[in-house]
C-alpha cells in the first residue's frame, strides 16, 4: 500500500489545516464502509483514526503487543465502577481489525422492536436485506465450512445432547488458515476487515487517511458543523496538547463508535433536545463459564467463533432477558485475567489451559424498562467513562445464563464446570452446579462481566424527541452531520454487531450520496 495518501499525525511538527468534501471520524465498521462508498461516488474523502495504521506485517500474534497497540485503553477499558471490562478496537479498521469475524444479520425481532418503539421503518427502500447481501458479497461473508475447533464443537455437542438450537457462523474471511489469532490482527490478511477491504480501496480512489489523530471538538454554529479541532496522539495514544489540527468539510460523518462518538458530541456541547445523547449505551453484558475436559481443547487454535446457539435469545417469557451462547478464543492473557482465584489455585487452572473450554452468554440488553443501558460521561481530561448499572433484571438473566452454560458443558462431557464468579467453585456434576449457581451471590466485581459489543448512545429514531439521529443517520439538529456507527442502534441486537453496522451504513451512505450529489 502506497503511503502517499497517509499521514501519521504524530509526525507533524506544526499546526495544520485539512479540508475535504467528506470527513469521516473513525475507520471501523461504519467509517470503513462509508469511506469506500463516498470515494466510489467521486467525493474527496478524508479519514481520521485515533489508532495507528498497523498492517499484517505488524501482527505478531502476541497479546502483549496486540492489546496496547490495537485496543482502546490497552484492552483494559472498564465501566466506571470497574465491574465490566470492554474489548474495543482502536486502530485503522477499528474493531473489525481485531474482532472474531462473526457476521450475523440484524435479527427480525430486533428490527420489529425498533419499529414499534422508535418508529423506524425497515420496509421498501428502507429494507436492510439488500444491503446485508451487498456487504456479505463485498466482505466475503460465508458460512464457515471447516469443522469447528474443539472449543466450538463442545458448544455444538452440548446443544445436540440437550436438543437446543445451534447454527454455524458466517465469517468474513477469504483464505483463512484457521489460525485462531483474529483478536490480535490477522497476520495473513484473510479476515476481510475494513483494514484490508474498503479502506485500501477508498485510498486507491484518492481518499486520504490520517492516523494517530484524536478529534477533540466539533465546531458548530446554528444548524451547521463548521469544522473539527483535533490533536495528534503520543506513542501511548494519549492526546497531545502541543499541536492543533483543524479540519473542514462539506459533510461530516461521525463513526468513532458507541463510546467515542457520544464523547466527542458531549465535548462539543452540541444541541441535545431529546436528552438522550450518550445515554442508553448497550453492551451485550457477557458472562463466562469455564469447563475442564479430559481431552485437549486447545482453544487458542482454529476459528475462534464458528458455532452459536440462539436457544435462549428470545425467551417465551418476554419479561426475561434473552442471551446468546457463543465461545471466545482462549489465549494466555485473556484467560489469566479472567480466571478466578490467586496463587496455587490460579496457577493450577492455568496449567489446565489446553483442556479448558470456555462458553460465554451475551445478554440482550435494552428491550425492557429495567434494561436502559449505560451513560457516557467525560472525565477531567475529556475522555469518556461509561457508567453502566447492573440491575436486578440483568442479574436474574446472568443466573439463568450461568445455569444454561453449566448444563451445556456437562452435557458435552465436561469433568468440571467453573462459573467465572469470585465466589464460585469448580463443580463436578450438573446437579452440584445447579444447586450452587442457584445460591451464587451476584454483585458487581464478584461476578465477572465483560463486553465486546458497544452499541447506542446516539440512537436513531423517527422523531427528534426520541433520538439523536433520524432513520438515515442524519443528526436532527446539525444538518451536515451524520452518525454512521454502532452508536445509532436503539437497543442491543441479540447478535454480533458488525454486519448490522455494515448493512445499515451502506444503506445510509447511498441515501446521503443521493442527497449530496449535484
Amino acid at each position, binding site marked *: 500500500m502506497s503511503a502517499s495518501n497517509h499521514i501519521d499525525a504524530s509526525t507533524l511538527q506544526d499546526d495544520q489545516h485539512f479540508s475535504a468534501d467528506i470527513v469521516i471520524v473513525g475507520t471501523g465498521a461504519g467509517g470503513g464502509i462509508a469511506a469506500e462508498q463516498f470515494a466510489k461516488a467521486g467525493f474527496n474523502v478524508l479519514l481520521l483514526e485515533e489508532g495507528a495504521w498497523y498492517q499484517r506485517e505488524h501482527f505478531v500474534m502476541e497479546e*502483549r503487543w496486540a*492489546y496496547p497497540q490495537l485496543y482502546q485503553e490497552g484492552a483494559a477499558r472498564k465501566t466506571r*465502577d470497574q465491574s465490566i471490562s470492554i474489548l474495543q478496537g482502536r486502530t485503522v479498521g477499528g474493531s473489525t481489525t481485531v474482532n472474531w469475524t462473526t457476521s450475523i444479520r440484524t435479527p427480525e425481532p430486533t428490527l420489529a422492536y425498533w419499529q414499534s418503539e422508535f418508529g423506524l421503518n425497515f420496509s421498501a427502500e428502507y429494507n436492510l436485506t439488500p444491503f446485508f447481501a451487498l456487504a456479505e458479497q463485498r466482505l466475503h461473508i460465508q458460512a464457515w465450512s471447516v469443522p469447528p475447533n474443539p472449543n466450538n464443537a463442545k458448544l455444538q455437542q452440548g446443544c445436540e445432547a440437550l436438543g437446543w438450537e445451534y447454527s454455524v457462523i458466517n465469517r468474513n474471511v477469504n483464505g483463512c488458515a484457521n489460525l485462531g489469532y483474529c483478536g490480535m490482527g490477522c497476520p495473513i490478511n484473510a479476515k476481510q476487515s475494513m483494514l484490508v477491504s474498503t479502506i485500501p480501496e477508498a485510498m486507491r480512489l484518492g481518499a486520504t487517511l490520517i492516523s494517530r489523530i484524536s478529534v477533540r471538538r466539533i465546531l458548530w454554529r446554528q444548524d451547521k458543523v463548521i469544522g473539527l479541532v483535533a490533536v495528534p496522539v503520543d506513542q501511548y495514544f494519549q492526546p497531545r496538547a502541543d499541536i492543533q489540527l483543524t479540519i473542514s468539510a462539506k459533510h461530516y460523518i461521525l463513526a468513532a463508535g458507541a463510546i467515542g462518538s457520544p464523547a466527542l458530541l458531549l465535548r462539543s456541547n452540541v444541541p441535545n433536545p431529546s436528552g438522550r445523547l450518550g445515554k442508553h449505551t448497550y453492551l451485550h453484558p457477557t458472562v463466562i463459564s469455564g469447563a475442564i475436559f479430559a481431552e485437549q481443547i486447545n482453544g487458542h487454535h482454529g476459528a475462534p467463533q464458528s458455532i452459536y446457539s440462539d436457544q435462549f435469545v428470545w425467551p417465551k417469557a418476554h419479561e426475561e432477558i434473552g442471551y446468546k451462547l457463543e465461545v471466545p478464543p482462549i489465549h*494466555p492473557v485473556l484467560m489469566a485475567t479472567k480466571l478466578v482465584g490467586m*496463587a496455587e489455585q*490460579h496457577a493450577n487452572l492455568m496449567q489446565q489451559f489446553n483442556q479448558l473450554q470456555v462458553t460465554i452468554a451475551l445478554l440482550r440488553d435494552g428491550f425492557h424498562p429495567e434494561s436502559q443501558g449505560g451513560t457516557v460521561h467525560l*472525565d477531567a481530561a475529556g475522555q469518556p467513562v461509561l457508567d453502566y448499572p447492573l440491575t436486578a433484571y440483568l442479574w436474574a438473566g446472568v443466573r439463568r445464563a450461568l445455569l444454561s452454560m453449566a448444563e451445556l458443558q456437562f452435557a458435552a462431557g465436561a469433568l468440571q464446570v467453573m462459573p467465572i464468579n469470585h465466589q464460585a467453585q469448580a463443580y463436578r456434576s450438573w446437579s452440584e452446579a445447579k444447586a450452587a449457581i442457584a445460591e451464587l451471590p451476584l454483585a458487581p466485581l*464478584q461476578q465477572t462481566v465483560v463486553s465486546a459489543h458497544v452499541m447506542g448512545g446516539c440512537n436513531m429514531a423517527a422523531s427528534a424527541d426520541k433520538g439523536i439521529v433520524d432513520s438515515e443517520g442524519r443528526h436532527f439538529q446539525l444538518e451536515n452531520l451524520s452518525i454512521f456507527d454502532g452508536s445509532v442502534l436503539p437497543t442491543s441486537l441479540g447478535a454480533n454487531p458488525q454486519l448490522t453496522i455494515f448493512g445499515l451504513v451502506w444503506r445510509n451512505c447511498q441515501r446521503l450520496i443521493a442527497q449530496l450529489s449535484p
Partner: protein
Amino acid sequence: MHRRQFILAGLAIAGTAALGVPLWHYSVSAQPENRALVFSAILPALLYGALPADGAAAAAALQRTEQALHDFIPYLPKRQQQELDQLINALAHRVSRLAITGYWVSVKELTINARLQMLQRWRESYLVVLQQAYHGLRELLYGAFYGQPEHWQNLNYTAPRFR
C-alpha cells in the same frame, strides 16, 4: 501479640486505613520506588505456584513481569494511571509508616500467606475501593506475567510464528 499476628493485623489495617481514608490524601503521580515496593510485595504472592521453583529463574520472571507492567501502564487512560498510582502510593506510605515502628522491617518479611490474606480481605471487603484494588491489581499483574512467552511453559502453549 505474636509478631506474625501483629503483622497480619497490621496488614489488614494497612489495607483498610490506606484506602478507607480519602485517597485524595495521596499523590496521583507515579513514584517509581512505590510502584516497585508494592509490585514486589504482591507479585510473589499472586504468582505463588506459577513462578519457577529455581530462585534465580523466579527472580528473572518477577523482573520481567515488573518491566511488562511499566511498559503497559502508560497505555491506560491518564485517569486510571492516576488512580493506580494513588492506590500504590497509599499502600507504600502505610508500609513505610509501619516500618518506622520497628515491627515491619521489610514488606518482604511477610509470608506469602499473609500477603494472600491481605488480598483476600480486600476482595471480601465492604469497601468498594478495596474490592476494586483487588480486581484491578489482580488483572494488571496476571496480564503482565502471562503476556510473556517465557512464562508459558506450564501452559504447554506456544504461539505460532510466521516471520
